[in-house]
């Protein structure tokens, strides 16, 4: 029976880790993209400024 409990915990861990890992990936990716977007927007604004 103890093996079954190990299997159960292993399976539940996969579920929780899978979900949390993916959510973490999404939030980190969004943060990085937001940063890239704002720096690119600054770049665009700088380029379109009169005199540049």
């Amino acid at each position, binding site marked *: *029976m103890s093996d*079954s409990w190990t*299997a159960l915990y292993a*399976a539940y861990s*996969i579920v929780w880790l899978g*979900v949390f890992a993916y959510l973490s990936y*999404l939030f980190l990716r969004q943060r990085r*993209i937001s940063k890239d*977007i704002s720096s*690119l927007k600054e770049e665009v604004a700088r380029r379109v400024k009169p005199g540049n």
Partner: protein
Amino acid sequence: MKRLGLVLTLVSAILIMATTYLAIFYAPLPGTSVKSIDEVLPSIEGTTVKVSGFVTNFTVHLPDALDVPTRYTFSLADFEDYARYLAATEAGNLSEQWWTIRPIDVGYSMGGWLPSGLNFTIHDCSNISVTADVVLRVIGPNSAVTGCSLAIVENVEIGPQGGFSTMTAPIAQKIFYFHMPSAWVSYVAFFLTLVGSVLYLRSRNARYDRLAMASAELGVLFATIAIATGPIWAKEEWGVYWRWDDTKLVTTFVMWLVYVGYLSLRAAISEPGTRNRVSAVYGIVGFVTMPMSLLSSRIAPLLRSSHPEVIASSSGSLSAEAGIAVGVAVVAFTVLFAAMLIKRVEVAEAEDELEELKREIGGE
């Protein structure tokens, strides 16, 4: 939309915690009304479970150190019956025949490759491990078969004159409460990929492409969870992690591969218009694998599948408590999926915006 996503995430987290509690402490062990194996053991010690049938590939494991005296007797049926069974299997009319079991007492003998009827005198279940491929017919009262039989009979095929199906790993069966909802959500996700793909091809609106992509990615995530947790349960239940002769397992694996291919295809094409168009067509064609997986054990009953049906027949075997746990689990995973989908679409919008900005700068 952002706030809705956060609320859904929170709700799904609470529901998943509730599912965990219900699965472990509330849902009874399969085929019984008890919620813990500890409740079963005292009541079945000393009982005799009678089962008739043929057993192949039969092994018994006796631990070195038992804390209580344990004794077993086995009655093995005549070899002739097994020869008839093999002949019937070969002729394809297994369901039209039955056999007379002529038991031969062999005392403590075990192992080997023998046809048999079994009489187990059970003094303690906790340390016994028996694996067998069996065609079974229950002779004894059903009450005697509950509980301990969960731990001693594996790989059951239903015999031609009735019989029973049971879970050999009642604790590991609780994996079901996460395994099935994960698979369910992956089916929903792949359906949304189909919807998004069709709408994209009709309207060329990038928003539908984002929906298709986000759904496919989440579908792959949840299908991966289902495919990873299934074998852990299968190892406990069937004795093997995977069966390539099982239609359900193979069709689900093919479905997973197809959608991994979908994501790879998207990653391989850089031009947005081409990428969206090609992946939309792929998303529509690839969807054929979803019903194949979902309905494989129902529409192909003649093919071999030990996997339980996803859509239960009218006489579902779940108890009321187990049904509640499954219901909560399905709602929890569906809400979680919705929350993650909103987030993924949000990220995809940001990705598109970034791509657009890069093109803008690059094109100057």
